[in-house]
């Protein structure tokens, strides 16, 4: 049975990728490393960030709102202290990067050259300080420029992670492709709120956070389908995948691989369970190569 997939020139043993933000080298012993196709690091920024004030989490109906605030040690300490520990795991490591300005992205990509990483994921769901805090990923032009500058600054494999807050998700994906992206991942969390009705204030330490979990899955799936249909580069699907059936839906919709985020926080052994479930499904369906499943959605004439 062939589970290996290809994202441009990046070959993964299987399509299960750990999404950014749910894994740390310190917690590696909780994860079934041998069942993981690739790991995306927590997002790194040019300078250290202390993160947002608590509470940083709120459980909602079938979902989780988080406002962690990209807490991280900054790129220099990351390269020195954390990256070597990721690299020891023997799994392809994709480094998630973000910045405060467009220029931060290529500078960070340059710092990551020659470190043996599998590639870079661009976290575009963060405020652009120079443009009044508007998220980089809102605007297709900006996504195009950032991807191109990162590609120019490094020869690394690059995958922008699209935000569902994009004005037009398909246009944004096409802009990423045109900028030279090797793959596209989507979606990041949905901007969300929750209000304490007695205190008349946000139930999080910040006004808004990002919603993830099963609540967003159907919308994420629709977006992945629309993007996969429009671009020629591989798409990595993400958003509320909790089990093998969910992962299979994304593959059938056109994703070449999937990112597992929130589910890992509840059950860190889930990557192995999802992979087993995919294997079992392929056996039942008599499918020998997982690539046969990718984009295999049948569309009735009326649907178009």
């Amino acid at each position, binding site marked *: 049975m062939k589970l290996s997939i290809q994202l441009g020139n990046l070959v993964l043993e299987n399509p299960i990728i750990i999404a950014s933000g749910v894994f740390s080298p310190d917690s590696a012993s*909780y994860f079934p490393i041998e069942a993981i196709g690739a790991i995306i690091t927590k997002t790194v920024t040019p300078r250290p960030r202390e993160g947002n004030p608590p509470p940083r989490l709120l459980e909602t109906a079938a979902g989780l709102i988080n406002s962690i605030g990209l807490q991280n040690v900054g790129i220099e300490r990351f390269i020195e202290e954390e990256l070597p520990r990721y690299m020891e795991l023997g799994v392809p490591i994709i480094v998630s990067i973000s910045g405060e300005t467009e220029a931060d992205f290529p500078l960070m990509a340059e710092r990551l050259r020659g470190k043996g990483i599998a590639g870079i994921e661009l976290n575009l769901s963060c405020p652009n300080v120079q443009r009044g805090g508007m998220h980089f990923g809102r605007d297709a032009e900006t996504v195009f420029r950032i991807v191109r500058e990162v590609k120019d600054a490094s020869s690394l494999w690059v995958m922008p992670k699209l935000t569902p807050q994009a004005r037009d998700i398909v246009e944004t994906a096409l802009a990423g492709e045109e900028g030279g992206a090797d793959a596209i991942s989507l979606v990041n969390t949905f901007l969300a709120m929750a209000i304490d009705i007695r205190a008349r204030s946000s139930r999080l330490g910040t006004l808004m956070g990002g919603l993830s979990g099963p609540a967003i899955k159907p919308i994420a799936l629709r977006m992945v389908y629309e993007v996969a249909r429009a671009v020629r580069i591989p798409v990595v699907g993400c958003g509320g995948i909790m089990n093998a059936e969910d992962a299979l839906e994304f593959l059938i919709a056109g994703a070449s691989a999937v990112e597992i985020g929130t589910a890992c926080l509840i059950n860190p052994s889930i990557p192995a369970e999802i992979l087993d479930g995919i294997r079992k499904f392929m056996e039942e369906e008599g499918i020998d190569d997982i690539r046969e499943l990718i984009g295999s959605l049948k569309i009735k004439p009326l649907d178009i």
Partner: protein
Amino acid sequence: MKGSFKAKVISKRFLSDDVFLLKLREPIIAEESLPGQFVNLRCSSIYEPLLRRPLSIYDVEEDNFLLLIRIIGKGTKLLSLVREGDELDVLGPLGNPFPYRMYKNPLLVAGGIGIAPLHFLLKKLSFPILLFGARSKSELYGLEDLTKIARVIPFTEDGSEGERGLVTTRLKEFLKGHDVIFACGPMGMLREVVTIAKDVGVPSYISLEERMACGFGACLGCAVKTKKGYKMVCKDGPVMPGEEVII
């Protein structure tokens, strides 16, 4: 790999309308747990509620461990409905314990349901003093059993048991001769405990609570502000030095 365990429900006993003691069988958790540590358990086999619930370990008996649980929302409500023989998905033991071996004569301070981690700690000490406060007698959970393993001084706000008033009212007095405070309870109580401990110049360790997801230090969700920046309740705590926490 440190996976989660399937722990079998051995018994469930209600101590009041909304507080119950759950006994679960899992030899490895029972063997490895230390006072102050917690487990993170799923409340249902589906993802509703989505997250696990972090709960302090109340006690360990042979292959079993016990949790003292107050029903405060739908997760704990579901847990209150489990039956003998059911299996629960448990991750743990997690977090750092009370550093009880470093001190000779600790004073323990508990507020209400905050007794949970201190009960386990009491059993590792030889008949220590426990100041145990609550709003009223019915919230002094397990008081009778506690008197068998500790010198318990109860306080209630309504005077229905022990001294009337807050558990911290006479803390300074009781602190004489002790070299550390171990405390767990509501934030207001912990704040007062830390302030008094600082005044007297005695170290304090407090067990904290914060909304939590993974429980093993990956998501950075359960942040608490300290003098050294944000720390995570799950991994840097739940027991933290009182003087470091900004509460």
